């Protein structure tokens, strides 16, 4: 159980030509499951490697339980890591792979064998012990990589997109298994992924990253219900949140030809606190209903149906509002292309973002 913190950590590559991470500030609680989430190239893997000790920060400091570790080697930090392609040693059997960190540590053979057996049984791969990694399926390789990581009883457990090489069904299985594993072992875990479903389903808290910086740190529910910026709002949710550009006028927001919306109470409070000027109105697709006739309520936006995507579980209707497309997620629908429709939503489901993309509170 280790508490990890980063203070103003920056990492530059190529003599400062590339900024991989810029001023990361982060506290990871003991036994927490933290997920770095972001698009490819956002610096989440570099952040993980900085914590692992595979990279040294260009600026800033990293602490494990209050001790500064950023010049320490990975083994001195006692971190374990699972790599995206597992990085199993191809010339060793499964048991030898798992034994490797213990051998290096100088654990006596009897103790070693017992621990290997335990961990292989724990991950249900005892039958594969003498096989070589090349003979294993993707899911089994994944388990061996996990076994090699946990056999050392590390203080921090790091995972770099561990599920991205598995097929969808296996990914689902391993997701719940990883969660179970972490619950049972209670090891501080940092997990990197670009898959928001993985992040939301496993994390105690999610760190959303973009362009080398942290955009928001929040538990999954809060990330969904209160995205701090427009960018986060667009990144979380599938399909992502609709953001309509409009101008705030007395007590309402105007969207040009599509009409205007009166907003009494948004999730962020009364409209009177909102400054005048350009704003974005955010509504999640699942909070929008579609009506074919103008409803009595005033919060309705007029548009025409662009495309309808029936996905079985629900249907996504893409509606053209002015020159923007709004997604609505509805159970079923009878509308077709070019139908005029009205979009309605609860005031409480709407978010307002200012010109800088910050959530207005």
């Amino acid at each position, binding site marked *: 159980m280790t508490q990890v913190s980063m203070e103003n950590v920056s990492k530059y590559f190529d003599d400062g030509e590339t900024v991989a991470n810029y001023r990361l500030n982060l506290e990871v609680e003991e036994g927490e499951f933290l997920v770095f989430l972001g698009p490819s190239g956002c610096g989440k893997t570099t952040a993980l490697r900085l914590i*692992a*000790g*595979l990279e040294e920060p260009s600026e800033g400091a990293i602490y494990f339980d209050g001790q500064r570790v950023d010049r320490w*080697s*990975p*083994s001195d930090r006692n*971190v*374990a*890591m699972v*790599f995206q*392609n597992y*990085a199993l*040693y*191809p*010339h060793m059997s499964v048991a030898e792979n798992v034994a*490797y*960190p213990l051998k*290096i*540590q100088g654990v006596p053979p009897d103790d070693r064998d017992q621990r290997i057996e335990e961990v292989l049984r724990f991950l249900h791969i005892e039958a594969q012990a003498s096989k*070589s*990694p*090349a003979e294993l399926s993707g899911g089994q390789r994944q388990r061996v990589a996990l076994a*090699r990581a946990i056999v*050392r009883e590390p203080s921090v457990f790091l995972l770099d997109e561990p599920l991205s090489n598995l097929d969808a069904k296996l990914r689902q299985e391993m997701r719940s298994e990883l969660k179970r594993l972490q619950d049972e072992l209670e090891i501080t875990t940092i997990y990197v992924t670009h898959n928001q479903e993985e992040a939301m389903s496993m994390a105690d808290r999610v760190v959303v990253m973009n362009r080398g910086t942290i955009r928001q740190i929040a538990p999954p529910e809060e990330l969904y219900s209160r995205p701090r910026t427009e960018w986060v709002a667009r990144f979380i949710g599938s399909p992502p949140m609709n953001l309509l550009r409009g101008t705030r006028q007395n007590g309402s927001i105007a969207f040009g030809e599509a009409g205007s919306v009166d907003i009494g109470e948004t999730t962020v409070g009364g409209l009177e606190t909102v400054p005048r000027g350009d704003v974005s109105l955010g509504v999640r697709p699942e909070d929008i209903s579609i009506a074919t006739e103008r409803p009595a309520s005033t919060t309705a936006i007029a548009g025409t149906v662009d495309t309808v995507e029936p996905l079985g579980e629900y249907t996504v209707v893409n509606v053209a509002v002015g020159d923007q497309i709004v997604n609505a997620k509805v159970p079923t629908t009878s509308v077709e292309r070019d139908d005029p429709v009205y979009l309605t939503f609860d005031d409480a489901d709407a978010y307002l973002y200012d010109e800088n993309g910050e959530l207005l509170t």
Partner: protein
Amino acid sequence: MTNDEPHTSREPTAKSDGGATEQYIPLDAVPESAPRPDLDWGTRIAAAVPSMPRLLKYAIAIAVAVLWIVPFLGLFMASFRPLGEILAGWWHVEGMTITFENYRRAWSYQTAPMGRALFNTLVVTVPAVLVVMLLGAMAAYPFARFEFPLKTMLFFFILLVMAAPPELVAMGNYNTLREIGLFDSYMGLILVHIGWGLGWVVLFLRNYLLGIPEELEEAARIDGASRYQIFRTIILPLSTPALVSVAVIQFTWVWNAFFFPLVFMRSPELYLAPQVLPLMTGRIQVEWGLVAAGSVMTMAVPVFLFLMLERYYKQGMVAAVTD
């Protein structure tokens, strides 16, 4: 769609067995291997007979192959036949006498016995190969992985030395060996072979090491291994196929080397096999049978080594690493 198209596309096509094609096939009806089309013999023969241009290509390829193998075949035949038959032309096969006399005589030829020469060659070749493998791997690893000053420059130097012909370094090495008292000794010859072989071995191994995923080393670092432990327990075992290639090629070169022993070895009792071969020509007439038998014996050792180590080439270790 036109009117007559649905007629052809929607009608279920009747098969030879009379059954109609079904939309859903039961899973156990899927065959293990592709069904063989029932063709009559005429069609099969017509398909098997190559076309004229293809026939021509075959003819050229076979001609080149024969051209390649004929000298070796002649040498092999000559080594097993008495001198009289060789002089009449080794290609006359009628009334052929097969004898091991040439081998027996060559093995213990009085001025330069092949048996001793082969042993001498082995004494020089084995250390020259093993040391080059170890030093080469140790030098190639930093070039593949570390960052250090003058790295590119040093690597360029290695390539530059490789471009030089052996004759160029012979004079310098000759003087050096005389100076330090290693002239006409196996130690001196071995050192020259090591130095000469190191260049290509470093280049070859470096390129191979670059193909080993860095993540494996990072995983080992996380597991607590030191640089040396990573080299010994991860890099060296994974380099086995490349090291085997180096061993076979370097062995063949050192074994067959003629120029270096010629320059650096003077005492006849220390002569190596390639040096001994020209001495077997005799005084009055050329003993072709002895030369042929000696050549076959000299050649056999690298060939045997290659056959022994061949399976290591085929090991799919690289594939296992990269997938």
